[in-house]
């Protein structure tokens, strides 16, 4: 069991990291030949991080669009954030000593439930709103259910079946430090851990890439200064433009 999950964990981590880096590399290196910021946009370089932050931290555009959807999405993402933070303890020794972290860990018991409620809310919208149902395909439902599964098994493992967290920590730290330790072979943990590995593998190939892709969105990350600063990208600069003005044009009027 230990050997199997150690191999799976390294495989999943490799796929996740390599896949993510490859995608980000692609986004970063693909040229944006024209200025297409969504105006009104920041008119200075320093304004862009602020705009980006408002999207990442409070989902500004989504808030502008649809408050119900915003609430569902925001609940899920906040829950996810709390859950990720609370998992830090499995990766780092002495994490409890980090100042300020207690603010999050105080609320950590809500992480799973908030995440699950947000996800079920999002799932419900796909069934209830006809427009959302129209655009949803299998992979949309699958991802939501996968995440629900992760949240629910996590809550069960922590609060109900009370998996031995020390053993979990030993195992995870072993993976991280490349000196594998015994796998805590409790059924609920096996399910939780397996679902997480599945998520990691699926991540770079799926729409979950929005987490990284948002930062490369030209309508959001460009500065509105095309008159002041000339944008030139390689392929565009090489596109020839020739004008042939017909001297004797036919009379059309």
């Amino acid at each position, binding site marked *: 069991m230990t050997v199997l999950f150690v191999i799976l964990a390294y495989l999943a981590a490799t796929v996740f990291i390599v896949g993510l880096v490859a995608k980000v590399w692609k986004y970063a290196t693909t040229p944006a030949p024209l200025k297409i910021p969504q105006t*009104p946009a920041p008119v200075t370089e320093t304004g862009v991080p602020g705009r980006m932050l408002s999207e990442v931290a409070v989902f500004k555009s989504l808030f502008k669009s649809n408050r119900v959807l915003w609430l569902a999405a925001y609940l899920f993402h906040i829950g996810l954030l709390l859950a990720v933070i609370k998992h830090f303890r499995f990766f780092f020794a002495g994490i409890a000593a980090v100042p300020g972290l207690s603010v999050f860990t105080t609320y950590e018991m809500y992480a799973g439930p908030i995440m699950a409620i947000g996800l079920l809310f999002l799932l419900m919208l796909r069934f209830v709103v006809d*427009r959302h149902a129209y655009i949803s395909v299998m992979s949309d439902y699958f991802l939501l259910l996968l995440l629900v599964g992760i949240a629910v098994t996590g809550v069960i493992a922590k609060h109900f079946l009370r998996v031995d967290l020390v053993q979990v920590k030993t195992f995870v730290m072993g993976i991280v430090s490349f000196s594998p330790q015994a796998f805590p072979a409790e059924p609920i943990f096996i399910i939780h851990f397996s679902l997480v590995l599945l998520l990691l593998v699926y991540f770079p190939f799926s*729409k979950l890439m929005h987490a990284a892709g948002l930062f490369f969105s030209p309508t959001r990350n460009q500065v509105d200064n095309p008159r002041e600063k000339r944008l030139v990208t390689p392929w565009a600069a090489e596109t020839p433009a020739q004008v042939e003005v017909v001297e004797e044009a036919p009379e059309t009027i």
Partner: protein
Amino acid sequence: MANTEATATETEEEKVLTDLEKVGEPRAPRKKPNEINAEELTGQIETPKVQRDVADHKPYLCKPKSMEKLGFPSELRSDWHDAAIAKMGDLLKKYKALQVYMDICVKCGSCTDKCHYFIGTQDGNNMPVARAELFRKVYRKYFTTEGKILGKLAGAERFDLDLLGEWYSYFHQCSQCRRCSVFCPYGIDTAEISMAAREIMDHIGVGQKYTNDIIVKVHEVGNNLGMNPKALAATLESTEEDLEEETGQKIRLPLDVEGADVLMVTPSADFFASPHVESLLGYAKVMHQAGINWTFSSTASEAGNFGIFIGNYGQMQKVASRVQKAIEELRPKRLVVGECGHAWRIAYSFWNTIIGPFGSLDPNYPRPQHICEFTLDLYNRGAIKFDKSANDDRVVTMHDSCNVARGARMGDQRGGQFTIPRELIKASCNRYVDMDQDTIMEKTFCCGGGGGLLTDDLLELRVQGALPRMQALHKVRETHGVNFMACICAIDKAQFTKVMPKYGIPLSVCGGVHQLVASAIELGAKE
């Protein structure tokens, strides 16, 4: 034409369609203009229940001759499938926006109720995310691991003739107005996707007649309306005569003056279409009263640039390069652009990249400058004066053009594209009222005719697409007695004057910002 013989012997009802005709012909015949009816206006914009396949609108296919002139295949390529996938791969490498937007949509549904064509047609595929899905289906199938392995489960689909037909229909039901992008949590810009789709279609021999014919016209004659330099000179001359009759003053509309201070580039519709020409009179009066030495150019007699609509960088650059040539010929100090939405987006956002830098122009002024920036600046400096009461018969509102609102700016402040035209309007009239906040500024609704759809073979779609704007206008007409909607876009003016009668709104309600300026400006000796 292999099947000419076959079709000749068959009867009308059993006509064998070529693959290209299958792609380009709607299932039901297009309605005649008098058969098209608009909804009754209530003043409320309502999100409809989603319908399937109810808006099978398709514009006319481009004729082989125009396709060839633009360097596209004259007919559907026999290897169209492979060619389309190859072109898609090429565009994914060239455009960050396309590549990123293909991957990151989570289909949250935020955009689903934002498109005017969805609101007007109720067709599910006119929801921005569903429109983009038509592209993503193909992208996933050929460019993603997920799609290659999971196929339909992941929403991947083979690019076949039916899907190409849907592309032709729904990517010509997008006016590239970018309203959906405002509400997208990642700023996914459907305009970029529909431009790429049209670019791919052109490259396999499926072009749209209206946009492509117009680009050919610009290359061959010089402007969208196909007005040659001689005709242009004659039109300007007769307009000068009209102006003299109206004002008693010698107000000039100069053409091809070398060394003028200002080169004015405006949509060719301004030269004689109505109500566009009213704004042209406004430009002329402003220049005259401020004593500015200005000129039009017969080389650059068009600010519009349909290259953007078909997503073809080379065509857009070639059309724009006429302006570059005019600058070389006439050596003006400043460059000013008339009332035109997509033209201003291209001028403001793209010109510096595609035909810049403008080293020969005076750096003390924006290069290029919008006519509203130009006029308001003169007004604020006292170079021109307005008599607001001249517009007292009007209650004015403003329709923000999508390309100006969401793709460009005026002035040096964020949001100047909203405040500058409004300041100018308010300076020239006493009664001004905005439409609903959800329908103006960055949330403005498209007129329904932008993005290369301003053609009569799409008239039904245009009427449907205008619905949200008409509702918002109707509301302020009822509540505030608005009788003039000021626009800064030639397409707006042409579209509204065509569809407003269908909604029972008089033509005179639509006009230009400089039409108001033309009425209010005080001509004659300065104090």
